[in-house]
C-alpha cells in the first residue's frame, strides 16, 4: 500500500499540481444478522482502492478507483488532475490550505481480540442465543440481533511530504425487540452501538443478559400509558443525550456549514463565524469536549484525511461556544491558523469533507448521581436511549424521542411511559441544563452512519454524557 501511495505522489508531483494527496485503503466488513430466530444475513465484504486529490490553480480534482494495481493508481491520478485543470479553466479556484508540517508515523486503534479470528460459529451462536432470549415471550413480535465487524487499513501520503498509516478496527453489536399489544408495536434496543475495539467489545456488551432486559422493557413499554404533553423537567441519560448533542451541537459547529458549503443538502447553521469565543450555547455547567484522541472513539484515526493529527479541544467551555471543527481548507476562512483535523471521507471512493469529531458532555466533577438529579424534579420524565429525531437545517428547532420513558413524580421515578417527544431550540435547551451526573454514570454511543454531503457519504464518531437534567422543556410535540 505504501508503494502505491508513493507512486501516486510521484505521479502527482510530475504532473505539476500545486498540492496532491492519495489514500490507499483496504477494508473488510463482516455482517451477521438474525431476524427473529433465523440467520438472515451472513456476509463478508472486502474492498480496496485509491482516492486521489489534486489541487490545480486553487481548484480541486478528486478521482478514485477500485483495485490496488499501479494502473488503477495512475488512472486515478490522471483523472484527478484532468478535472482539476478543467475546473480551473472555467472559474478561478480559491482553495488555500492551512499550513501543516510533514507528518510521519502509524496508528493502530485498540483491538485486544481480533474479531476476524473469532470462529464464525461462535459469533452466530451468540446472536442465535440472543434471538432465543428475546423471542422467549409470546408478546414479542419481531427481533433483530446483529453484529458489524470492520477493519480498514489506510496509507495517506501528500506532495508535502506526509506519509502516515493507520489500522482501525470497529465492532458493533445491536439488539432490538418489538413488543405487540392491543394493536400497538413498541421497540427497545441496545444503545451503546459501535466502539473502536475488537471482539472484546462484543464480550463486554454481555449480549444475552442485555437481550433479556430489552425483551422485558419492550413488554413494559408497549403496555405503558402514553406520555403527557406540556412543559416539564427532563432527566436524559447519556445515550439519549448523545444523539441530541450530535444534532444540536456537533453539526452546527462544523465549519463548512458556517461557510455555506452544505446549504444545498445538510443545511447551514445558526452559529456565525463571529460567534467563536462569545456565543452562549448553554448554561455555565455545559462543557463539550471534542476529542479525536480518545482511544475508543470512532473518529480517532491518528490522522484525518488531510493528514492532520487528531486533537482534543473545547467546543463549548462553561457554556460559551469556543470554535468550529475545521479542515485544512476551512481553517483560514474561519480565522484559524491550523486545522482541527476534522477531514474524513467514508472511504477511498469519497471526497473527504468536514465531519464531526468525537465529542462529549463533560460530567460533573463533584459527586452527583442520576437519583439526585431526579430528586430535584416534581413533575417530569426520565428518558433512556435514542428514538425519533429531527432538526431544522439551521440546527435550531429540534424534536427528539427516546427508547424508554419513565414518569417522574415528586422526585421519584415511577411508572413507564411510551410515545414521548420533547422539542426545543438549541441554545434554550442547553441553557436549561442545571445538573449533570458525575463520570461514574458516563455512557458513550458510537455512531457508524452519520450522513452528510453530496453525493451522500457516512461518517463515524463517538459521543457520550452522564445523565443530565433540563428544566421546563416542551413535551408532546408542541414546538412549532
Amino acid at each position, binding site marked *: 500500500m505504501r508503494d502505491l501511495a508513493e507512486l501516486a505522489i510521484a505521479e502527482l508531483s510530475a504532473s505539476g499540481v500545486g498540492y496532491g494527496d492519495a489514500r490507499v485503503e483496504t477494508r473488510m466488513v463482516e455482517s451477521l444478522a438474525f431476524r427473529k430466530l433465523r440467520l438472515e444475513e*451472513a456476509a*463478508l465484504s472486502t474492498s480496496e482502492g485509491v482516492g486521489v486529490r489534486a489541487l490545480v490553480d486553487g481548484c480541486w480534482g478528486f478521482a478514485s478507483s477500485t*483495485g490496488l494495481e499501479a494502473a488503477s493508481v495512475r488512472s486515478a491520478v490522471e483523472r484527478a488532475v484532468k*478535472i482539476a485543470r478543467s475546473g480551473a479553466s472555467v472559474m478561478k479556484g480559491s482553495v488555500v490550505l492551512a499550513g501543516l508540517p510533514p507528518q510521519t508515523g502509524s496508528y493502530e486503534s485498540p483491538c485486544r481480540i481480533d474479531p476476524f479470528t473469532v470462529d464464525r460459529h461462535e459469533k452466530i451462536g451468540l446472536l442465535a442465543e440472543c434471538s432465543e432470549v428475546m423471542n422467549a415471550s409470546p408478546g414479542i413480535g419481531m427481533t433483530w440481533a446483529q453484529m458489524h465487524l470492520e477493519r480498514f487499513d489506510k496509507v495517506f501520503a501528500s506532495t508535502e511530504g506526509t506519509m502516515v498509516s493507520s489500522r482501525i478496527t470497529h465492532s458493533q453489536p445491536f439488539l432490538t425487540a418489538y413488543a405487540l399489544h392491543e394493536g400497538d408495536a413498541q421497540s427497545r434496543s441496545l444503545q451503546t452501538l459501535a466502539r473502536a475495539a475488537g471482539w472484546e467489545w462484543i464480550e463486554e456488551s454481555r449480549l444475552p443478559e442485555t437481550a433479556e432486559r430489552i425483551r422485558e422493557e419492550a413488554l413494559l413499554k408497549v403496555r405503558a400509558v402514553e406520555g403527557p404533553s406540556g412543559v416539564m423537567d427532563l432527566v436524559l441519560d447519556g445515550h439519549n443525550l448523545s444523539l441530541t448533542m450530535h444534532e444540536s451541537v456537533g453539526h452546527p459547529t462544523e465549519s463548512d456549514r458556517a461557510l455555506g458549503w452544505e*446549504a444545498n443538502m445538510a443545511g447551514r447553521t445558526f452559529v456565525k463565524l463571529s460567534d467563536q469565543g462569545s456565543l452562549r450555547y448553554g448554561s455555565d455547567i455545559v462543557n463539550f469536549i471534542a476529542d479525536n484522541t480518545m482511544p475508543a472513539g470512532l473518529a480517532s484515526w491518528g490522522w484525518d484525511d488531510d493528514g492532520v493529527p487528531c486533537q482534543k479541544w473545547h467546543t463549548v467551555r462553561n457554556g460559551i461556544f469556543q470554535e468550529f471543527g475545521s479542515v485544512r481548507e476551512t481553517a483560514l476562512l474561519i480565522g484559524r491558523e491550523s486545522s482541527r483535523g476534522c477531514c474524513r471521507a467514508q472511504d477511498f471512493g469519497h471526497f473527504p469533507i468536514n465531519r464531526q469529531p468525537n465529542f462529549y458532555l463533560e460530567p460533573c466533577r463533584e459527586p452527583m448521581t442520576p437519583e439526585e438529579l431526579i430528586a430535584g424534579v416534581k413533575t417530569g420524565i426520565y428518558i433512556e436511549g435514542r428514538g425519533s429525531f429531527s432538526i431544522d437545517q439551521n440546527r435550531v428547532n429540534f424534536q427528539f424521542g427516546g427508547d424508554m420513558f419513565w414518569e417522574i413524580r415528586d422526585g421519584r421515578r415511577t411508572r413507564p411511559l411510551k410515545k414521548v417527544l420533547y422539542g426545543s431550540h438549541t441554545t434554550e435547551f442547553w441553557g436549561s441544563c442545571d445538573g449533570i451526573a458525575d463520570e461514574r454514570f458516563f455512557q458513550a454511543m458510537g455512531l457508524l452512519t452519520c450522513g452528510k454531503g*453530496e453525493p451522500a457519504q457516512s461518517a463515524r464518531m463517538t459521543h457520550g454524557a452522564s445523565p443530565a437534567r433540563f428544566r421546563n422543556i416542551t413535551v408532546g410535540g408542541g414546538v412549532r
Partner: protein
Amino acid sequence: MTREEMLDFVQEVLGRVSVPDAVADLSEERSAFVRFGQERITQNMDTFRRALRLWVGDGCRKAEYVSHRIEGKAIPSIVKAAEDLLHTASEDPEYMPPAEGGQAYPVIDAYDEATALAEPGPRMSAAAGAMEAARRSGAEAAGLTGMYRETTAMATSTGNLCFHDATEAVFTMTVHAGGGSSYRSLVSTRWSGMPVDSSIEEVVEEALADSEPDDFPGGEMDLVLEPQAVADLVPYLLWSMNARTSDEGITVFAGREGREVTGGNFTLSSRLGGPVPGRPFDSDGLACADQVWIDGGVLRTLQCDRFWARKTGRPAVPGPGCYSVDGGEGTADDLVARTPRCLRIRRFWYIRFVDQKSLELTGMTRDGVFLCENGTCRPVRDFRWNWKPLELFSRIEALGASERKGFVSAPPMLLRRVKV
C-alpha cells in the same frame, strides 16, 4: 468492461461454484459531480467502483461475499471465500434458491451514451452559471451537478442471465437571499433532458420572493404541497409497504390489503418504463414488473419477498426502484388559485418516524413556505409538523401535473383543512 466481458465474467464465476445455488452480480458505478457553495467549487469528483457480489447456497444454508478484486485469476479465491463463509452459516428455515429460471426481463430505456461519456465542461459550466446568476441578484447559490452511471450483469445458477445499464444526470440547487431560500432538483436519464438554465433563473427569483419571512398563526389550513414536498413524503409510505412486516403487525398497513387507506384520488404505482425508469430485476434475479400499490385510495399491493409469498400465497413482488403518484393537470400556482387561503410548501426536511405503527412522521419545512390569501402570497417562517401522510392523502382536493423528483414522480397537491 463491456457488456460481453461483464456477462462472461459472472458466468465464469458461477462455473467455479461447487454448491448447487449461486448468484453472481458484477456492477460498475461511475459518478462525476461538481459541488458548489459560497462562490466556489467545493468538490470536483470522478469516481469509479467495480464490485462482485457472490451469493452461494447449498439448499439449506446461504452466504454472501463481496469483492473488489475483479480479474480472472482472482475468481478461485473469491469462490473459496464465499463457500468458506457458507460452511459456517447456520441452517436457514426460510431458504430460497435463486429466482426460477426462464425469467423474462423487461427492456428499460434508462441509458444515454452522451451522459455516460460526459466530459467535465458542462457540469462545471452549469455550476458556474448557477453561482453567477445568484451573485447578479445579490444571492448565494449552492448545489450539485453531474452524472451517475450504473451497469450490472447478473447470472443465476437457475439459468438466468441479465444485464442493465442506466445513466442519471443530476442538477440540484439552493439559493439563499436575505432570510429566504429556494430549491430545485432536476433528475433525468439524459443531461440534455434537464432544463438547467431556466431552472437557475426560476430558483433565484423564488429565493428573492422568499426574503424576510414573517410568523403566521397556526390552525387548520388548506395546504398546497409542491411536487418536491409530496415526493419527500412518499418514501415513508414505501418503507411501510411490506407484506411481511405488515402481517407481523409492525406497520400501519397490517390487515388493510384491499381496504381504503387514503382518499379516492390518491394512486401510487410503479411503471418501469415511466417517467422514472425502474430496475428490470432484483438481487435474486427475479424480474420486476409494473405495479399498482395504492389504487384510488385502496391498498392493492405490498412488496413481498419470495419466501413470504410462498408462505402466504401472495405473488412475490420486488421493489422496482421507481414510484409514481398520479397527478392531474396544471401547476402549484393553479392549485393556489383554487383556494382563498392556503400555505404553500416547497419541500420538507429531516422527516423521521414518530410512530412507525401509525405511520406518524415529524419534519420541518424548508426553502419556501408562503401564506397565500386572495391571490397574494407572502413568505412565512419554516415550521415543525407532526403529520400522518395517509391522513394528508385523505384530504386531497386537487392534483396538478406530476414531475420527476429523484426516484419518485409526484404532482403538486391541494389538501383541505390540515392542522398546522
